[in-house]
């Protein structure tokens, strides 16, 4: 039998580094529900499920728990989903219209809540998520309008508002520029890794608060060849990820 040689892989795109950075949020998570909101986090969760986090549970975005190929393996209507949140067996990655230095997140409105300049979605489940299960965030366009000094409405609870909340944890924030965490003495946001091609200056320029930057900032890890093939051929063959984060 002769093996057909596969064409050499093109180098990873920025969107693919973002997929890897999101997928890593669920490494070693065990048998819990991964709740990605947004396209790249969804690609990341499915990639994690197919590779290093095979015990993850995934949903179809409605009421079914599904295998990566779409086969139903469970029923999770909203009422059970909300119960699962409070049981803690879930790691959600939400979006953020605004996020601040201590990880407070806003998806409700811009401006004064009484009469907003721009009404957005509403608090949704951010208050319950952040007090009950690990909550990470995904920001496809890192800018000073998103990474703000102070959010206009605290929906997702940040470290400075969490008090002694026993199940509060924000494992990571992923943007198109890098990965961020709160592993600092006062839980202020820290630059944890840069996507290849991005500089510290670029990130500082796009962030409206004083970001903690360690002396030596690592780069977001490379996808393996196997991961790249899975992303490109199995999980997102239509390359929808490129629409969320361009080259």
């Amino acid at each position, binding site marked *: 039998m002769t093996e057909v040689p596969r064409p050499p892989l093109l180098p990873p795109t920025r969107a693919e580094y973002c997929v890897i950075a999101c997928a890593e949020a669920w490494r070693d998570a065990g048998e819990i529900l991964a709740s990605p909101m947004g396209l790249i986090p969804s690609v990341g969760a499915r990639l994690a499920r197919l590779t290093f986090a095979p015990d993850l549970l995934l949903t179809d975005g*409605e*009421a*079914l728990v599904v295998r990566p190929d779409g086969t139903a393996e469970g*029923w999770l*209507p*909203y*009422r059970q989903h*909300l119960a699962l*949140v*409070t049981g803690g067996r879930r790691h959600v990655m939400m979006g953020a219209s605004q996020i601040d230095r201590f990880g407070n997140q806003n998806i*409700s*409105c811009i401006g004064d*809540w*009484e*009469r*907003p*300049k*721009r*009404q*957005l*979605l*509403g*608090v*949704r*489940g*951010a*208050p*319950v998520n*952040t*007090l*009950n299960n690990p909550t990470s965030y995904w920001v496809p366009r890192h800018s000073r309008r998103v990474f703000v000094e102070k959010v206009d*409405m*605290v*929906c*997702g*609870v940040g470290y400075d*508002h*969490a*008090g002694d*909340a*026993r*199940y*509060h944890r924000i494992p990571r924030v992923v943007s198109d520029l890098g990965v961020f965490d709160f592993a600092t003495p006062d839980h202020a946001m820290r630059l944890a890794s840069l996507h290849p091609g991005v500089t510290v200056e670029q990130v500082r320029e796009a962030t409206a608060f004083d970001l903690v930057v360690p002396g030596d900032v690592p780069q977001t890890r490379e996808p393996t060849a196997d991961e790249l093939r899975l992303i490109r051929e199995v999980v997102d063959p239509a390359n929808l990820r490129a629409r969320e984060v361009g080259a």
Partner: protein
Amino acid sequence: MSDKTMTADEVVSRLHSGMTLGIGGWGSRRKPMALVRALLRSGLTDLTVVSYGGPDVGMLAAAGRIRRLVAAFATLDSIPLEPHYRAARERGAFELMEVDEAMFMWGLRAAANRLPFLPVRAGIGSDVMRVNPGLGTVTSPYDDGETFVAMPALRLDAALVHVNRADRLGNGQYLGPDPYFDDLFCEAADTAYLSCERIVDTAELTKDAAPQSLLIKRHTVTGVVEAPNGAHFTSCAPDYGRDEAVQKTYATTPWPQFAARFLGGDEQAYQSAIREGS
């Protein structure tokens, strides 16, 4: 046993301005839109609306019928932000009690269980507490001593929900993947009105469907309305999916024009108007 069938207009004739109305479904999914359209045809106003918001909230807000809204969000799902809700909020058209979607559920559960509140681990630390200064907290009387939000009961004067099938007595059946919270809305309400795609004989309900699809029990239901396509343009799986074309027209047309084109007549006129294409 009483036959509870009535028309959508009869439902509305039993409601009053100033009432607290719970509306079932979620976002742009299985909303009792035929009942909402009947509300829009009536003069009812000054309403407190309690909803996992979708176009029900958008339309009632655009038409100026809402005095106060209790919600965690408003969305059209495939169109993330509800444009008419946004516009109404940005012009300060109504009062808002903005709570988390789990707090909302526990508020309905408290009402259904005749409790004044239920403790919930949500809200504390967030600005939900700032914008709802009336929300109280409660501390566990046990060793843990944790403090929770005491989510007040969301008691409803009336609930409006839409399901796939029902009998004339008010037994309601959903055939899609998610019951949402429609049974809870009915249990939390003094009166509940159930519209459905088709009224069938009681025996017909479980002929081809499992008994756990019988979501709504007749003791919680006041009136039953047969309203084919009654969730349109929201989804009503498996009978039909969301009508994305009409939803897009709704989202991109100024409200007065949309209302004039689609909501000027009765339900039959609406159903003809949407068949003529968007």
